[in-house]
C-alpha cells in the first residue's frame, strides 16, 4: 500500500472578512449527516466566528482518549474512529481550544475530519467551499505564516496589528 502523502494544508480564518453567517457550520452539519463538527465561537455580542480543529502535531485529545479512538493519520489529520469512540467526553475536556463539543451525536463525539473524503480527492473542506465571504481558505500553513496578514494560530487579518 503506498504511503499516504502528508497534507500540509490547513483551514485559515481571515478575521477581517468573516460576517458570522454560520454557513460553514451548516455545510459541516449537512456534509457529515447531521453531525456538526464545527463549533461557533461566540464573542459576546460582537461576532460569531467558526473555531476549527487545528489538527495539532501532538494532539491532546488523542493522548487523553481512553479507548484510543482518536489518532493522527498518515496525512497528518487527527481523526476519530466511529467504532472505538465510547462517548466519554474526555477529548472535549482535554482539547485546549474547545473545538470538540461535549454533545454526542450518534453516541460519538463530533470531531472535525477536515472533510478527508473531499481532500484526498483534491478538493477542499466543505466549510471552506461554502464560505460566503471568502474568510475561510484552505492553504499551506507554511505559506500562510509567511504572509503579512498572518496573526497566529489559524488566523489572518489585516486589521489586527501584529505584535512585534
Amino acid at each position: 500500500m503506498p504511503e499516504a502523502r502528508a497534507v500540509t494544508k490547513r483551514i485559515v480564518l481571515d478575521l477581517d472578512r468573516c460576517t458570522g453567517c454560520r454557513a460553514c457550520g451548516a455545510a459541516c452539519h449537512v456534509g457529515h449527516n447531521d453531525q456538526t463538527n464545527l463549533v461557533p465561537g461566540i464573542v459576546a455580542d460582537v461576532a460569531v466566528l467558526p473555531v476549527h480543529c487545528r489538527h495539532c502535531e501532538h494532539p491532546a485529545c488523542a493522548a487523553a482518549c481512553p479507548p484510543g479512538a482518536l489518532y493522527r493519520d498518515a496525512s497528518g489529520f487527527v481523526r476519530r474512529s466511529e467504532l472505538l469512540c465510547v462517548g466519554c467526553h474526555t477529548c472535549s475536556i482535554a482539547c485546549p481550544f474547545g473545538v470538540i463539543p461535549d454533545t454526542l451525536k450518534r453516541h460519538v463525539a463530533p470531531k472535525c475530519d477536515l472533510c478527508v473524503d473531499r481532500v484526498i480527492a483534491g478538493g477542499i473542506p466543505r466549510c471552506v467551499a461554502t464560505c460566503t465571504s471568502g474568510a475561510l481558505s484552505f492553504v499551506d500553513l507554511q505559506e500562510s505564516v509567511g504572509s503579512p496578514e498572518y496573526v497566529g494560530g489559524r488566523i489572518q487579518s489585516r486589521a489586527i496589528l501584529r505584535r512585534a
Partner: protein
Amino acid sequence: MTDSARSICPFCSMGCTWRPGRDPGHACSGEAGVATLDYDPDGGPNRGSLCAKGNVALELMTHPRRLETPILWDEGRARPAGWDEAIAFVVSRIERIRAAHGGRAVGILLGPHLTNEEAQAAVRLAEAIGTPHVDLCEPEDHAVLSGIEFSGARPARVENVEQIDAMNALLLVGDLLTLAPCAAKPVLNARYRNRRHTVAVVSPTKTRTAWFGRPALRCEPNAEASVLAAMLAIALDAKGAPAPAWAEDARRALSHLPASELTRASGISVAQLAPIVEALRNGPAAGVLLASEFGATERMDLVAGLAALLAEAVGARFLAMLEGANSVGIRNVLRVAGYPGPAGHTAPELLEAVVTGDVKALLVFGADPVAAHPGTIAGQALRAAELTVVTAPFPGAAAEGAHALLPAAVFGEKAGTIHSAFGTPATLVPAMAPPGRARTDLAILDALGAAFPRRAASAVPRQVAEPRHHGFFDELALFFQSEAREVHAREPGSHLLLAEASSTNAAEGSLTGLLSWARYAYPEPLLGLSTAHAAALGVRAGDLVRVRSNWGQTELRVRIDAGLPEGVVTAPHRDPAVRGLLRWRRETAVRTLDLRPDRVSLERVEEEHHA
C-alpha cells in the same frame, strides 16, 4: 441528469447555484433521485458559496412533511383525491362562482418560487377566467419593487457580481449581508481591494453589514429616507451633474427637508454625506445596493425609490436584493401582461376584497399569504372565500383553510427560468421528480387553463398601468411634512421596535420554517436591548421579557446589544410572533402592504427556577 446539472437556491434573489449529485448508498438516490449537494465554484454569482439556508436546499426535496396527494375539502370533510378529480372539482367551483358573479370574483396570488413560465401560465389562466386580479404575494418584495416602479427611476442595473468586485464606491442601504449572505464575497472584495474605497452603510442598528461600513452611517431609526433624500439633493446640486427629467420635481419635494432639519431628524450631517456622494459620482465604478429593510424602517417604498433615484442621479449601478427567488421575473411577466392594472387588485387589496365579499374565489399558487402577512386579514380572507385553492409543497397556515390543497414541486424538481436580482435569466434543471403524486405548478396551471375556453386577447379586459413618476415626489413631500417621520421621537415608557433583517421566515408554511439547520443557524428570536436599557429594566442576557404592542404580545429572551440607540429595541422579523407585534399599513400610493416599526412596552417575566 448530467454532470453539468445545476440547481438554484430558492431562498433569496441572489440566484446562487449548487450541484446535485447521486450517492449510490443513499435511499433517495434512485433513478430519479438526488442525495448529495456539492458546491459550484464556477457556476453562478455565488462562486461556490452557499449560506446556512442554501446548504439545506436538498432537504426541501426529501423532507418527510412534503405533500404528496391532492386533498379536497368537501361537505365539511377532507379527503385525498386523484388529480383528474381535483382539477374537475376546482374547475366546477370556479365556473359556478363565475356564472354567479363574473370573472372578477376570482383572484390569483403567485408566490415568489414560481418560474417565469408558471407566471405566464397564471396569466393565461387569468385571461381564460377573465379576471384582472393577479399579483405577486411577497410583502417584502412588493414594497421594494412598487417603490422603485413608483419613483420612475431608470438607473443602470448591476448585471453581475464582477461589477461589484470592481467597484470603488458602494452605498449599502439595509442589511444586505444578512438578507443575502453570499453577496459578502464581492462586497468585501470591493472593500478590501483598496484602503481608500468607500463602502458606506446606512442603518440605524449595528447590523452584519454595518460592521463593514467605511463609513457606517448610524442614523436615527426611520431616518433612512431622510438620509437618502439629502444625498439626492447633494447629487442634484453638484456642479456638472446631469439633470434628469425629474430633477425639478425632486428639488421641490426635497425643499421640505432643509439641512438643519436633516441633522435633527437623522443625526447625520450634510458634511458626512457630501464626500460619499462625491465618491459615488466620481466612480468610475460605483454602486447603490439596496436590501429590503422590512419592518425596520417607515416607508420601505420611499427608501427603495430614493435609492434608485440616487443611483440614477450619480450614475451608479443599482441593485435591489429581494427575498423571493423569482420576484423580479414574476413582476416582469405580470407587468408586461398588464397585471394587476388599475382595475385589478394588488395582493393586499385582493385579500381585503375577499373579506368584504367582492372577490369570492382565491387561487393561491406557491404562496402562503398567512405566513407572509401574519397579524393581518390574510387568514380571515382565506376562511371567508367561497373557494380557496392552494398549491404548496408543504402544509401550512394557508393549506389549513383551503378547499382544494394541491401538492406542488420545489426548485430542483421543476424546469423553467427565473430572473435573479441581477436581472439575468437562469435555467432550472430538475434533479429529481416531485414526491408521490405532487406536480409542478406549471402542470397544475396548464390543467386548469385547459378546462376553460381560451378567449381572444382583445376580449380580455386589460389596462396597462400608467407610469406615475410625479406622484412619487408628491408622496415624498407629504412624508417630509408628516408626523410619520417623527415616530423616533422619545416617549417615556415605550420603545420603538425595529425588525432585524432576516432572509428566513420561521412561520409554518414558509419554506424556511421547516428546515432543520435554518433553525439551528438562527436559533431563537431574541430581543435586542441596550446595556442601559437592560439595567433600567433589571434584566440580563437570557432573561424573559414580555413585549406588548397595540397589535399583539409575545415573550422573548433578551440579548444585550451595547450599540443600540436609546429607546430602541430590536427583534428578527422572521418570527411570526414578532411580525404580529409590528404594524402593517396599506400604502395607498403604491397599493402595497408594508410592515412598519412600532412602539412596544416591555415587562420582565419572572420565571420559576427549579433547583
